[in-house]
C-alpha cells in the first residue's frame, strides 16, 4: 500500500535532491573510474554543448540533448530541466545561454533575474527583450523527460525512482534497456523492482530471441498495469482476415495464457471494486436513512423534512468551515457535533411546534412536514444562496488507497463507510443501553402503559425526534464530502431513505443496516449491466414488489398487532 504521488511534486526541490545525491549514485559502471580529470573534462564538454542548444534545427537539438544527458554532471540535469520547463534562454547580445529560476521577478519593470547556464551563477536583472527563449517541441520534451527519468531511476530517493520508472512506463524506448537492467540489479525495494522488471519486459517483448520474449510475456501476465495488457493485446492483434500478425506460434500461445491471467485478475479486482462502491453507496444510504429509522421506525412519524435536516447538517459544515478557514481538517470534526445540535434543535422545534398536534394522523403529518421541507429549502435559498456552496475536503480525506494498478479506493469513501458504522453503533448503544433508549422503546411499544409507569411521553417524543434529526445532521456532514451542497441536497435522499427503512422493517435498526447495504450493493452490481439510471429504477420496482409480498420489511417486528387504522 502506498500513496499515489502527486505529479507536480517533481519540482525544483527534487533537482536539488538529485544534485546532492548524484555524486553518490552509480549511473554507469564506467562512472566508478571517474577521477578529477574527468570531472574537469565534463565541465569542458558542457561548455562546448550548452551554447549549441541555440541551434534552430530540432533534430540537432535532440542529439545535443542526448549528449548532454550522457555527461555525468549535475549541471546537465539542471539545464535539461530548465529546457523542459521553458526556462532556458540565451542573451541576444553575446549569445550566452542563461536560465531563469522563476519567471518574471519584477512585474512592473518586466525584468528577469538570469543565471549562467554553465555554473548557475547569478548574472543579474535584464530586460525581457534582451533575452530569447530556446524553443522546444513535443518530441524534444519527450526525449528530455525520458532522459531525465533514465537518470533518476538510480536515485537514492525511492519516490524519485518510482516517479522515474512510471515515466519510463508511459513511453517504450528500447534504448533505455541497459539503464533499466543496470538499475534493476542494484534495486533493493521490491515494488520498485517489480516496476523495473515490467519496464524491461515491455521492451524485451519485442526482442528477437524467442525465449527472451516468452519470459517477458510471462512477466507481463503477472502485471496489472494497463500498459502490460495493452502490449499483450498488440501481440495478439489480428489482420483483416482474422489471422495473427505475429508469426511465432509459441509466443502467441504464451501471450494468450498471459492475457487470460490478466483478465481473470482484472475481473476479480473489478468485482472487488464494485463491491466496495456498493458498500460505499450502502453507507451513504445508511447515513441518510438511519435518522429516519428512529423518527419513522420507532416513533411512526412520517417526516418528509428529513432530507432537509440532512441538508442543514451539510450547510452547518459549510458555515463551520467559513468560521475557521485555516483549520479545514479540524473544521470537519467540529462540524459533526455542531450539525447534530443544529439539526437536532430544528427537529425538536418541528416536533413541538407541529408534529405534536398531529399524532395519530400520519397522512396529515406527511403533508405538514412536507411543508416544513419547502420552508427549510427556501430559507436556505434566501439566507445563504440558491447556488451550491463549496465545502472543502480536508487533506486527510483526499487521495486514495492504492492496492494495485487495477484496484484503488478513495479515502473519503473509506472514512464515510466506517463513520456510518460508527453512527450506527452509537445509535444502537443509545437505544439499547441508556435509560433514554429504554424509555423510547417503551413509548414506542405501548404509549399508555409507558405513561402509566411514569414516563413523560411528551418529553421522550421530543428527545427521540431530536435524536433522529440530529443524526440526520451528522449524515449531512458526511454527505457534504461526497456530493454538492445545495438547497436540493435533501430531496435527492428522501425517497431512498424511506425505501431503506421500509425495506429493512420499521423499528429495527439492524434491518436498516442490512437494507442499506443490500440496496447499495445491488445497485452497484446492476449498474455495469443496466446503466446507472436503469439500475435505480430496477431497484425501485423490486422494492415496490417486495413490499407487496412482505409489507413489514425484511425483519418484521414480532408480536405486534397487524395493520389497519
Amino acid at each position, binding site marked *: 500500500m502506498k500513496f499515489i504521488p502527486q505529479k507536480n511534486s517533481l519540482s525544483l526541490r527534487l533537482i536539488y535532491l538529485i544534485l546532492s545525491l548524484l555524486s553518490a549514485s552509480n549511473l554507469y559502471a564506467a562512472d566508478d573510474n571517474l577521477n578529477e580529470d574527468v570531472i574537469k573534462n565534463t565541465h569542458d564538454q558542457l561548455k562546448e554543448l550548452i551554447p549549441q542548444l541555440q541551434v534552430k534545427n530540432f533534430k540537432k537539438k535532440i542529439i545535443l540533448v542526448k549528449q548532454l544527458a550522457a555527461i555525468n554532471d549535475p549541471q546537465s540535469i539542471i539545464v535539461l530541466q530548465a529546457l523542459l520547463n521553458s526556462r532556458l534562454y540565451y542573451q541576444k547580445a553575446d549569445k550566452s545561454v542563461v536560465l531563469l529560476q522563476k519567471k518574471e521577478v519584477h512585474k512592473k519593470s518586466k525584468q528577469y533575474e538570469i543565471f549562467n547556464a554553465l555554473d548557475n551563477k547569478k548574472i543579474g536583472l535584464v530586460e525581457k527583450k534582451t533575452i530569447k527563449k530556446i524553443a522546444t517541441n513535443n518530441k524534444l520534451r519527450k526525449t528530455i523527460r525520458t532522459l531525465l527519468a533514465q537518470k533518476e531511476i538510480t536515485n537514492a530517493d525511492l519516490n524519485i525512482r518510482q516517479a522515474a520508472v512510471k515515466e519510463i512506463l508511459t513511453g517504450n524506448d528500447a534504448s533505455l534497456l541497459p539503464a533499466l537492467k543496470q538499475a534493476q540489479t542494484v534495486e533493493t525495494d521490491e515494488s520498485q523492482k517489480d516496476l523495473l522488471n515490467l519496464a524491461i519486459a515491455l521492451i524485451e517483448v519485442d526482442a528477437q530471441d524467442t525465449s527472451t520474449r516468452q519470459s517477458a510475456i510471462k512477466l507481463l501476465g503477472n502485471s496489472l498495469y494497463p500498459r502490460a495488457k495493452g502490449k499483450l493485446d498488440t501481440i495478439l492483434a489480428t489482420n483483416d482476415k482474422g489471422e495473427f500478425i505475429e508469426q511465432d506460434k509459441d509466443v502467441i500461445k504464451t501471450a494468450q495464457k498471459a492475457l487470460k491471467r490478466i483478465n481473470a485478475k482484472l475481473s476479480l479486482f473489478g468485482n472487488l471494486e464494485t463491491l466496495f462502491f456498493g458498500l460505499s453507496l450502502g453507507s451513504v444510504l445508511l447515513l441518510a436513512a438511519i435518522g429516519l429509522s428512529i423518527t419513522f421506525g420507532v416513533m411512526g412519524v412520517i417526516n418528509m423534512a428529513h432530507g432537509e435536516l440532512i441538508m442543514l447538517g451539510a450547510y452547518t459544515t459549510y458555515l463551520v468551515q467559513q468560521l475557521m478557514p485555516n483549520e479545514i481538517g479540524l473544521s470537519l470534526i467540529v462540524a459533526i457535533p455542531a450539525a447534530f445540535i443544529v439539526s437536532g434543535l430544528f427537529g425538536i422545534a418541528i416536533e413541538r411546534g407541529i408534529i405534536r398536534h398531529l399524532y395519530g394522523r*400520519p397522512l396529515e403529518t406527511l403533508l405538514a412536514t412536507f*411543508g416544513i421541507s*419547502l420552508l427549510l429549502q427556501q430559507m436556505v435559498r434566501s439566507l445563504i444562496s440558491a447556488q451550491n456552496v463549496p465545502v472543502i475536503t480536508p487533506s486527510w480525506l483526499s487521495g486514495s488507497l492504492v492496492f494495485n494498478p487495477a484496484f484503488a479506493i478513495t479515502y473519503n469513501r473509506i472514512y464515510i463507510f466506517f463513520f456510518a458504522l460508527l453512527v450506527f453503533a452509537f445509535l444502537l448503544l443509545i437505544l439499547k443501553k441508556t435509560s433514554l433508549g429504554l424509555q423510547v422503546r417503551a413509548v414506542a411499544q405501548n404509549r399508555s402503559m409507558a405513561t402509566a409507569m411514569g414516563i413523560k411521553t411528551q418529553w421522550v417524543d421530543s428527545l427521540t425526534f431530536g435524536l433522529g434529526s440530529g443524526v440526520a445532521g451528522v449524515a449531512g456532514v458526511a454527505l457534504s464530502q461526497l456530493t454538492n451542497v445545495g438547497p436540493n441536497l435533501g430531496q435527492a435522499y428522501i425517497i431512498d431513505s424511506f425505501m431503506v427503512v421500509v425495506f429493512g422493517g420499521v423499528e429495527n435498526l439492524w434491518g436498516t443496516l442490512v437494507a442499506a447495504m443490500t440496496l447499495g450493493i445491488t445497485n452497484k452490481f446492476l449498474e455495469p449491466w443496466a446503466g446507472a439510471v436503469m439500475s435505480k429504477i430496477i431497484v*425501485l420496482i423490486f422494492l415496490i414488489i417486495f413490499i407487496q409480498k412482505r409489507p413489514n420489511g425484511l425483519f418484521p417486528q414480532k408480536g405486534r398487532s397487524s*395493520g389497519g387504522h
Partner: protein
Amino acid sequence: MIINRFFPQFMHKDTGGKWLLSLLALVTIIVIIFNFLIPLLLPEMSALHMPTYMVTLLGKYLCLALLAIALDLVWGYCGILSLGHAAFFALGGYAMGMYLMRQIGDRGVYGNPELPDFMVFLNWQELPWYWIGFDSFAFTALMILLVPGLLAYVFGWMTFRSRVTGVYLSIMTQAMTYALMLAFFRNEMGLGGNNGLTDFKDILGFSLQSDGTRIIIFSLSALALALGYITSRFIVESKLGKTVVAIRDAELRTRFIGYKVEDYKLWIFVFSAMLAGVAGALYVPQVGIINPGEFSPINSIELAIWVAIGGRGTLFGAVIGALLVNYAKTYFTGALPEFWLFALGTLFIVSTLYLPKGIVGLFERIKNKNSDQNKQAENKLEEKTA
C-alpha cells in the same frame, strides 16, 4: 328549487356542486360568446374579448381541478393518499403528446415524415413499436384512458391485495412516480428524454396556435371537468360510494361484514387514474409541452395540498382548492418568486393544523356558528372526525 331541474337527482343535495357547475357553465358561455361568437359575427366589437392566454390559463386550471377531483375521490372518499397521481396525469399527457407529435408530420426541424425530431437527432432508424397507432385520434383517446388505468390496475391489484395501507401506500405510490420520472428522463425510452414532447402544430387538423382551437379546448376542459364532477358525484352517492366511505372509516369492519375491500379500492383507484389521465391529455395541448418533470414526486404532493386546502371528501372543495392554489402560484411566482415556496410551505402546515376540513369546512363552521341550534351537535361531530 328551479336550479335542480338542470341537475340529475343525485346532485340535488349537493349545493356546492350545483353552484360550482353553474358558475363553470356561465364562464364557459361568456368565453364562447365574447371570444368566439362576437369576433366571428361582429368583428368591430372584438375588443371586448378576454385575452386568449388568459383563456388558456383558465383551461389549464380546469384540467388541474379535474386532477384534484380524481385525487379527492381516492383520498377524500377512500382514504388512499396517493402521492403518485401526477404520474397518471403525466401518462395521459404523454399519450396526447404522442398523438400531437405524429400530427407534426414532416413539418419538424429535420423534415422527416416518419420520425419525430428527437428520434432523428438520436439517429433512430424507425419508429418504436409503442408509437404505432398514435396517428389515430381514436386510438389515442383509448390509450389516454387505458395506460393510466392499466398502471393503476396493476399497482392497485398488487398493493390492495397485500393490504398495504396508510403511509406505506403513500410512500409506494411516491416511489412509483419517482421510478417513472427516472425512466422517462432516459433518451432510450423513446419519448423525448429530458426535453419531453413539444413543438406541437395542430390537433385533428386545427392549428393549436389559433384562438378558435384554444377556446374549443378550453370549452372541452370545462365540459370534462363538469362531466368528471357529475360522474364522481354519482359514484360517491351510489351504493359503491357508500361502501368506499365505509372502507375509509373502518376498513377491517367493512371486510368482516363481507365486502371485498380490495375490489372496491381497486375500482375507485382505476377510475380515478383514468380521470387523471383525461386531465393530463387536455392539459398538454394547452401548455404545449409534456416532459418528465410532470412525474416528479413534488407535483403529486402539491396536488394533495390543493385537495386538503379546498376540503377533502367534498369534490367541489377539491376544485376550489385547485383553482385557488394554482391562481396563487401563478400570481406569486410572477410577482414574488422568493415568497412562493414560503407561502406553499405555510399552506401545507396551516391547512393540516388549522383547516382539517379545508376552506369548505371553514365555511361550514361559520355557517354553523350563526345557527345556534346545531352548534353543539356539530361540535361533537367535529371532535369525532378530527
